[in-house]
């Protein structure tokens, strides 16, 4: 399915937010997810399904200074 991830169009097999994070090698615990301009509850990554055309922002929280 085609998604926009961090501003880039991508074709991915993922069906849920958790699948997508795993596909992209991102740690769910340190990644904040926004789907179609709404932040996704951390506890709901596994149950949040993706649909063609969804716009996602995935932000790995960093701590450097």
């Amino acid at each position, binding site marked *: 399915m085609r998604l926009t991830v*961090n*501003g*880039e169009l991508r074709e991915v097999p993922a069906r849920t937010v958790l699948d997508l994070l795993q596909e992209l090698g991102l*740690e769910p*615990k*340190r990644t*904040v997810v*926004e789907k179609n*301009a*709404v*932040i996704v*509850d*951390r*506890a709901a990554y596994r149950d949040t399904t993706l649909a063609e055309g969804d716009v996602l*922002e995935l*932000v*790995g*929280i*960093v*701590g*450097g*200074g």
Partner: protein
Amino acid sequence: MEVPPQGELLVNATLSDEERRRYSRNLLLPEIGEAGQARLRSGRVVVVGAGGLGSAVLYYLAAAGVGHIGIVDSDAVELSNLQRQILHRVADLGRPKVDSARDAITSLNPHCRVETFAVRLAAADIGAILKECHAVLDASDNFQTRFLVADYCWQAKIPLVSAAVAEFSGQLFVVDPAQGSPCYRCLLPEPPKERELGILGAVAGVMGCLQAIETLKLLLGLASDLVHRLLTFDALACRFHKMARSRAADCPLCGDNPIIGRQAALT
């Protein structure tokens, strides 16, 4: 929106002729003017970290006329710092960063009163160091400090302007309990494993400059979108994005069943 309250910052104090010349480009901004400049002069902020972020934010806060700046950093200047930490010079190698930072900003603006704390922040002393300030700026380089600072500021109701960088990424947000902000732990509930990553120096510069802007807005009482949003910067894509933050029901600090006690964070 008045953050911090007018009562805490003297707005009637007049500026000297030298200050009028020094800050003439600030005074031309209707959002600042003489009253705003006097507010900045009576503002007190503490910057945690005099590294890459601190190097940009300290210069711009001092130059803009913030009157009282605390600097916290336990490190000494090393050669590998100079790739991005432009507060420090070759002649400063081996000196405490707080001393080098103080010299750099007071030579730019001698009106600025600087207090230095050459310590790694710990629960025992954080209250004494972050006392009576209008804003705390997190420019630190590790999650342990970030969580300590964020928890303390939340409990003590001090506005926090938090910037962070790694590799080509930067993040910035403001937590102001008085404006109903979600806390840091709503974004990241527990400290993740520390990783040593590279950083392009100018990325820290970009984020430190944005952190200075948000701090000046807070001191001036100007509204900020970042009290409810997270700003992200991707230098490789040259892309900024703002996403709404929301309070997490399962947040260990401000959620429905907080597990971090008020006592623990304040002592």
